[in-house]
């Protein structure tokens, strides 16, 4: 009994899953028949022959061929509206379709020049690591001695971005995005209170929300397409947390008159630096990368350098409890950012008739062919 039920279910599944295959084969046969009718000049019956399958069959490649045949049919039937509508459907089935001038009829090529399916908008998303070089505006010392040295060290952060590109044309686009980033840098003070004496290490971690706006120029042919851009970004600081480590290194007398440096170290808890920072900041950036075309979408690798424009430091809060306990004071500085991203672009193709048809080159070819025939 159970065995019969299983077999029944299997047959039902097989029926439903195989249905489209049967339909596909059937429509393929219909298209072949329509092609034969076309070749024999029996044009008037072709739209009716294909209409049923066009309603049922969603295979993009089949629909491209079917609508292409219909376009050619309507052109020969001198039905320009039908031809244009069919060609729009060709582009909907394959936004990147371009007729071959050497193979396809010249009137189809001419028709194609009135249409495009290039994307108006593209969605993109990316993520990757970054580092944040510090550019000091004014050096501010916590120690009065000239021998005190300071340096900044790069630390790796990360970021995730998403946005939309508006395509002015196939090469130039404008981009608006939103970015979350975590940036890190380390500030080290050496020789505090004497040569080879105290060291203070401050590791500062920020999180940001940014709104980048840019203008991009891209190559538009080939599988690998380089691009470059310049832009401007508004940045809002969400959090700023720091950890400070003090190496209090004093000379320790040893027996025999020798000395060594003995260090008593202290690590701070996580300190909130948000009030010590300006909340809003800006940057200009330049970047570039390569897009790799995958089917109708793209993967890309991007490198961007952003130059921070504003002083990060809220000078009203430069000196506070942190100064009184952890021997640290901020320089005035701008925070740059070098980021590497790996991302994905999904263009929103839109088949549409052009306001200004690009038919001049086709007309020139027609004239050239006429001259050659004469």
């Amino acid at each position, binding site marked *: 009994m159970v065995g019969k039920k299983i077999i029944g279910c299997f047959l039902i599944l097989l029926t439903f899953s195989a249905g489209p295959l049967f339909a596909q084969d059937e429509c393929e046969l219909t298209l072949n028949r329509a092609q034969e009718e076309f070749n024999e000049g029996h044009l008037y019956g072709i739209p009716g022959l294909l209409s049923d399958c066009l309603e049922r069959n969603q295979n993009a490649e089949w629909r491209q061929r079917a609508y292409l045949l219909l376009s050619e049919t309507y052109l020969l039937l001198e039905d320009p509206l039908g031809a244009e509508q069919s060609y729009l459907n060709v582009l909907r089935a394959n936004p990147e379709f371009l007729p071959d001038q050497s193979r396809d009829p010249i009137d189809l090529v001419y028709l194609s020049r009135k249409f495009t399916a290039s994307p108006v908008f593209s969605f993109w998303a990316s993520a990757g690591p970054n580092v944040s070089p510090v550019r000091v*505006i*004014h050096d*501010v*010392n*916590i*120690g*009065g*001695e*000239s021998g005190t040295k300071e340096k900044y060290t790069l630390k790796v952060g990360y970021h995730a971005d998403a946005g939309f590109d508006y395509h002015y044309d196939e090469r130039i686009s404008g981009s608006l995005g939103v970015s979350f980033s975590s940036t890190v840098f380390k500030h080290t003070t050496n020789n505090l*209170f*004497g040569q080879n*004496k105290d060291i203070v290490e401050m590791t500062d971690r920020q999180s940001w929300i940014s709104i980048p706006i840019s203008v991009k120029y891209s190559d538009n042919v080939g599988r690998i397409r380089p691009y470059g851009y310049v832009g401007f970004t508004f940045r809002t600081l969400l959090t700023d947390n720091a950890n400070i480590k*003090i190496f*209090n290194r*004093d*000379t320790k*007398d040893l027996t025999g008159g020798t000395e060594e440096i003995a260090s*008593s*170290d*202290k690590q*701070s808890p996580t300190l909130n630096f948000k009030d010590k920072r300006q909340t809003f900041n*800006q940057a200009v950036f330049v970047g570039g990368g390569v897009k790799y075309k995958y089917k109708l979408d793209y993967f890309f690798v991007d490198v961007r350098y952003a130059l921070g*424009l*504003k*002083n990060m430091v809220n*000078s*009203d809060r*430069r*000196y506070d*409890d942190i*100064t*009184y*306990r*952890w*021997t640290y*004071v901020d320089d*005035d500085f*701008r925070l740059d950012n070098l980021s590497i991203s790996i991302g994905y672009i999904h263009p929103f193709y839109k088949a549409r008739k052009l306001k200004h048809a690009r038919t001049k080159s086709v007309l020139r070819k027609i004239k050239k062919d006429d001259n050659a025939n004469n």
Partner: protein
Amino acid sequence: MLLGCDTGNRVDPVFQDHFIKYYGEDGNQEGVDIYVNSDGSMILLGNSSSLTELSIPFIVKTDSLGNVLWQHQMGGRNEKAVDVELITSGTHQGKLVVVSNVGTDTESKIRLTIVDQSGHGIDSLILPTDAWQTVKSVTPSSDNDFIVCGYAAPDPIRNSPPSPDDQADIISLRVSQSLTSVDTLSWQGGEHEGFAVKVFEVPLQGETKYALFGYSDRPVTQSVGFEDKFEVLVVDVFGQPSLRLTSGQKGEKQKAARAIRVPASQEDGYFMIGTNEDGANRDIFIAKYSNDLSVAKLAQKLPYGRKMEGVAVASAIQEEGYFLLANETQDNNNRNIFLVHIRLDGSEVWSTTFGTDDGDDTAGAVAALKDGRIAVLGTIDLETQKKMALIIVTKTGGF
């Protein structure tokens, strides 16, 4: 500005004018006194200590931006510097004199050290004494001597009949600038405790006299008991007292910490700051004296609702009034540095604190700078050590 680039030209270097800077070396360093030269450079005096060194004077000279020009230890072990002043005349004109206490408690002796503006020690002298002496300050006199003052072991001759409660005599000593002679200018008996915090030369009744500012519990009359009060004692060149002025609130104690001469711009005279003790309560106590020391124009405690210990005072230069420096004791007994600007009548203009509850941060000295800024020298208790701190703030106490 919403858009634009912050560059060195567009970001005001306010940190050069208003800042906190720490000074020191191995171990801990406290800040006790500051002297501002006419060129804006500053002499910071303090003491250094570590596990192996009890205390040794530490002196720093900075430029007007607080950058160290030179710094070093001076004196000897178990020595505490308390005051630095400019020598205004004589062979050492332009140099500095530092006073310090060598040894502690009943072994304390006074040392004078002359240092030039490059930090080189010129000469020093431990004042010879048979009993302990403790110095509070030094004043270069117009006749090129140094007048030091403080307190000393009670002298039985000056305290008759002797009392078991007698702890100290108020003293003032005259030391020649060549450090070759030491004379007693004034040796006050009769008090159980007290000390002079500063001596000023005062022209009174056509002659040069010396006013010892400090505090004493010596009764004004025999009918009242011993109780600490601010005291100004005027003596002539032979140490003979000609005037005694006490001020304070009956039933409470007033202990002096520092006294300054008030310039004409602040109505001339003298100003003394200290602490009013009323049981466990502590408040800043101030007194303002007329130029002829005939009257105390102002003698009051300044209740701020917290435990306060008056430490130092400076006359404002561009503003009216005075800048008072105090130690503010927190609930956990740690102290913060408290700076308040008061008007001539004692009312507050503004106040601010430096330091954190987690550290025991203490006040040293305050100076009003010509351009209106205020320099505070103190000791900040950092996470791993104490360091001498120079804090320079705006004329309203901010950065």
